[in-house]
């Protein structure tokens, strides 16, 4: 550093424009946020296996598997929207964004429905009123899992659901801007970072689904 170099070329930085770099950096913190939540679930379940039931007995795995498929579809439509604006296809952008919004909203709706069903079966986060019995079993059957099960399940999936909901709101904003012609092939940062966020939420769900519903 003492010698003076002739290297006076402008700094290239990350070779990634600000907005995208900022979104990536933000997503790193999201990784840590979900690490805290999922990690707590893994640790608590490891420490107290008896407090957690076999997911298939309490949770509705087929329904959520279908919901997972919906979220993966929404990732495809999102990436299609991005591919469309890369070709400067305004109509395609709006069409695919709308599809993503609908799929995302559908996902949240199914999750809300699932919550209602589970809660009515006594699978609640509140420790003192937790009383989940096996799916289809007669009244008075053995309680599956314990209060930690309900608490960790709702916290993890709930925060993921909140992320999807926020994503849907932001997608609506992106669609609004797209309809006003804010994005072009040369100016698609808004669409790209929206996509990064959306795919990240999808990625988290892929891991959550496996850890919470299948293992």
């Amino acid at each position, binding site marked *: *550093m*003492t010698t*003076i*170099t*002739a290297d*006076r*070329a*402008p*700094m*290239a*930085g*990350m*070779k*990634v*424009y*600000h*907005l*995208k*770099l*900022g979104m990536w*950096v*933000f997503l*790193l*913190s*999201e990784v*840590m*946020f979900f*690490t*805290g939540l999922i990690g*707590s679930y893994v*640790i*608590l379940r490891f*420490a*107290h296996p008896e*407090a957690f039931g076999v997911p298939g007995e309490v949770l509705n795995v087929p329904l959520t598997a279908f919901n997972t498929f919906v979220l993966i579809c929404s990732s495809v439509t999102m990436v299609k929207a991005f591919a469309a604006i890369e070709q400067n296809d305004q109509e395609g952008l709006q069409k695919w964004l709308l599809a993503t919004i609908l799929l995302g909203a559908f996902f949240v709706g199914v999750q809300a429905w699932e919550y209602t069903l589970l809660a009515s079966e006594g699978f609640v*986060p*509140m*420790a*003192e*009123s937790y009383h989940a019995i096996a799916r289809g079993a007669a009244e008075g059957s053995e309680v599956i899992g*314990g*209060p*930690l099960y*309900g*608490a*960790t399940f709702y*916290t993890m999936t709930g*925060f993921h659901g*909140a992320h999807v909901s*926020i*994503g849907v709101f*932001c997608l609506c*904003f*992106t669609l609004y*801007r797209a309809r006003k012609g804010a994005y072009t092939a040369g100016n698609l*940062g*808004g669409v790209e*970072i*929206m996509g990064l*966020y959306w795919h990240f939420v999808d990625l988290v769900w892929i891991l959550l689904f496996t850890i919470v519903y299948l293992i």
Partner: protein
Amino acid sequence: MSTTEKDIASAVDAGGQHDHHEIPWIRKYVFATDHKMIAKQFMFVSLFFLVVGGALAGMMRFQLGFPGQPMPGAGILPDAMMAPTPNGAIMLPEFYNSLVTMHGTIMIFFAIMPLLVGLFGNLLIPLQIGAEDMAFPRLNMASFWLAVPAGMLMLASFAVEGGAAGAGWTSYAPLSTSGEWTGVYLGQQLWLVSLTILGFSSLIGAVNYITTVINLRAPGMTWFRIPLATWSLFVTAVLILLAIPILAGALIMLLFDQTIGTGFFRPEVGGEPLLWQHLFWFFGHPEVYILILPAMGITSEVLSNRARKPIFGYHSMVLALISIGFLGWIVWGHHMFQSGMNPLLGTSFMISTMAIAVPSAIKTFNWLGTLWKADIHFDVPMLHALSFVSMFIIGGLSGIFMASTPVDIYIHDTYFIVAHLHYVLFGGSLFAIFAGITYWFPKMFGRMMNEPLGKVHFVLTFIFYNLVFFPMHNLGLQGMMRRIYDFTQYDFLQPLQPMNQFITLFAFALITTQLLFVFNFFWSIFKGEKAGNNPWKSNTLEWTVPSPPPHGNFAEMPTVFRGPYEYSSPESDDDFLPQTTPPREGPGPSSGVPEPTPTPEGAEA
């Protein structure tokens, strides 16, 4: 959590436009997007919280110096804090617990951290790397305006039923999970909500800093030409980015435990109190470095400048910063040696903790090396920076006692810990903050701070500070526990009464001395001697622009030719050589340097 989407989206082109049209008053001083104004906003707010935190400490010290005696003037406080007696008001134990908790919380989260990261991060990063502003100016504004309601909620908790949070700044579960254990219901929840909001504020600040440092450097500003202050703030931002979300997750789980009755940390329904401690300290140890790394950066800057000598071992300084940043993630268990943690884990955490002493030692030795054969000017910032070094030596060495697990058994949770952490946080961070404020004051306000007054403030602070905190080591060695309301309940601690009184009296003196700084600060803003662009004859980019710098900072994009610490270089007639000075005559082929082609945006996509 990602409402930032919109902010990012709308902030995209704000950086590029700085026309000379008049900015409305409210956009200039209140909802400002200029990084220098946001830095000043953070400074005023967190200096206010520094005063609040100091007042809380003063009350705590009164109780310890004069246990059970009526506190003069405390009659104005409500009966929930002070029990009225015929002779005056006596502090209640639950209020003492709140004081302990809130002093720690306010000092760490609302004073030191925003001063180091909010003030110096905002002020220095764009100026030192040659950027016209942060990458996302409006996000930056949002960061400040999230911190303000967080602070207000924290203060409001004193006024609610049951008082402010009283489970310690670490809020160990299960004490913190229910008001049943502490008598504090709403206060504890406000504490959690406030810290969650503040965490989000720090987080978006960190996103901004990282993007700015990576993408907005001026031409020629390679990674190893970045001044150490900016380097340290960059590493700090990475720590904030990755640590705060863990805290946020834990805070939310604890909030659920309190409000809707989940059982994450409640053992009576199968939860794990130790999980809280692990999550808290997994955040908490990086947090400790968040509070000291920027102080190290500021010290390096001031030390090299006032010693008129290049910093000793610039590269190893940077590597030490990075390795502290990484090692900080694998030592959190040393806060938990006596917590009931698996003792085998204790051994591994002890070894990793011993390893983290190494980069800290490297930095200290390098500062000493910088002073060797230097030309030392004893200005006020330099005095504070030097006391940072000497106090950090004490704080670092006393840390080794805790790192050794068997010794920690005895001194854990005693005043030895209190002494150690104040040597690092007050002797370290706060002295560096004083150094930084006096050093960059001319850049912020265009005037110098008063030198004689500053020296008086320094000398008195240095003496009183040591008289307050050094004896705490001895209290701890005699076995005095921390966070106890009335140590005279223990027979074996009663002989420590005179020592405690001694500490209390000098604590009052220390607090009073700070009035000198407050006076100097405000007086100098209006009446201080006018400073030029570069009063300290410094090399770094912020001193090439007017004081205070205009909106957009640099009239034209600066080009950087060398490292930041070329003091007393034989190449220069003076004893400094700014980073922007073109080489006098380039060696051989590089003499025909092409004209720089500055691109205002780092964007290439």
